[in-house]
């Protein structure tokens, strides 16, 4: 019996299937950007719960701090001032792991068991198995994982898998003062989002919608956006994210193909030898040279 306290759906660099008989509820975190005030309580709660403290940085001329995700900042608020047709909007988005149903990080990871996707949808990094290659970063369509300078391991949001495992909401969801972060089953979250979208449409946000990108099989962190038609307004939320075709090529069919090709060459050589025999120096030549020597 494995030690897992959550059922495993997939694990990195493992070709055999995980135990998959038990069916657990798929969970999701919904970030309602339209009620987010950018207070960073989620950042604080994340640091506190996960026992991580980032560096005390400097002001970069913006409200964003820390300025980007790091191995010690698993979530950051991204602030965008958007002014269109004389109307100013301060769009604030909590950035962090999206917990994709089809996780690019897991696909790219070469270390068995370093990245686990639980049956409830959480994609978790297990640093003790991480070799620090950074392939997860290469694989991620959202540019989320970060390698620590201290231990060269990759870190990112775990969706507080330790809390979820005992039935609690992630620290960021629990703490969120305005309720902009909600947590529950994915189905509940979609229903909740639908209600929020109706409300937003009634306030003139005709393009309000849910961000649950199909390109990565849907995510377990979703957004309600007032401008769902233009996610890029929210400090570069990808419009239609998917695992890069390059990564799919690399960690997809290149893997078996190249292995087959290499094996084919190896086996081909073997059979060539067996069938054609060695290429030896001809006896005539040797004799000829011996004769010369004898002269």
């Amino acid at each position, binding site marked *: 019996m494995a030690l897992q306290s959550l059922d495993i759906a997939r694990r990195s660099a493992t070709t055999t299937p995980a135990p998959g008989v038990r069916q657990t509820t798929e969970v999701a975190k919904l970030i309602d950007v339209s009620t987010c005030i950018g207070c960073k309580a989620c950042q604080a709660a994340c640091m506190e719960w996960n026992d991580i403290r980032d560096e005390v940085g400097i002001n970069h001329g913006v409200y964003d701090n820390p300025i980007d995700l790091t191995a010690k900042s698993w979530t950051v608020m991204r602030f965008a001032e958007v002014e269109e047709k004389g109307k100013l909007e301060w769009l604030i988005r909590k950035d962090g792991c999206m917990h994709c149903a089809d996780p690019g990080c897991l696909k790219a990871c070469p270390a068995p068991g370093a990245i686990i996707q639980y049956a409830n949808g959480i994609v978790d990094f297990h640093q003790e198995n991480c070799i620090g290659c950074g392939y997860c970063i290469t694989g991620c369509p959202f540019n989320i994982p970060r390698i620590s300078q201290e231990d060269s391991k990759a870190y990112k949001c775990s969706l507080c898998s330790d809390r979820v495992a005992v039935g609690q909401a992630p620290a960021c969801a629990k703490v969120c003062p305005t309720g902009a972060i909600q947590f529950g089953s994915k189905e509940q979250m979609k229903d909740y989002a639908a209600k929020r979208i109706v409300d937003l449409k009634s306030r003139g946000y005709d393009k309000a919608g849910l961000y649950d990108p199909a390109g990565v099989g849907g995510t377990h962190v979703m957004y309600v956006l007032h401008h769902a038609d233009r996610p890029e307004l929210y400090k570069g939320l990808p419009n239609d994210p998917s695992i890069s075709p390059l990564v799919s090529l*690399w960690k997809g069919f290149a893997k078996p193909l190249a292995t087959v090709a290499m094996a084919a060459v190896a086996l081909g050589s073997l059979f060539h030898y067996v069938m054609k025999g060695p290429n030896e120096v001809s006896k005539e030549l040797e004799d000829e040279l011996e004769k010369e020597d004898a002269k």
Partner: protein
Amino acid sequence: MIRNPKDLQRYTAEERANHWIVGICFILLALSGLAFFHPAFYPLTQLFGGGVWARILHPIIGWLMMIGFVVMYFRFKALNRMEPADREWLDRVGEMMDGNDHNMPEQGKYNGGQKAMFWAMSVCMLLLFVSGIILWRAYFSFPVDVVRLGAVVHAAVAAIMIAMIFVHVYAALWVRGTVRAMVYGTVTRAWAKQHHRAWYRQVTGK
């Protein structure tokens, strides 16, 4: 110790050492690289002390190989200039493979296949080096799209390279009497006369 004083010197000690440095590096790189490439090979990391050590050592060995290869490149560059005879040889490589080398054109120190291999490896080495640097997160940080391209290039070129090295090694084994050239540095006159007649004539004056 020279086995037979009449044997021909094909490689100097420096050349042989150079070759084997590159060769050993390559084997280590292939083993560790394959470990990251496909989960089936991941246990190969145990040869290096585990996944983390494999990840740390791979780029360092890569640097060593690259340095070794650059030296080797300049050593052998001139000898690998393609000539019309080489093209003819390459055209008729099928006969050669078939074990029938009687009608092959006369070859210098290197035959067309070897020369082609030399240039192909040089290109591959360059690609591996550049893409390897891109992937080396401990010291470099490139835009993620570049890294992704780098990863594909590194993996694809490495696979090609490994296949080529298989061919290279097999060729050496298949053509009897070749391996000793890289081990002792000498080949027999008969070997030289059969496989590299032009070179034989050049070194023996006959």
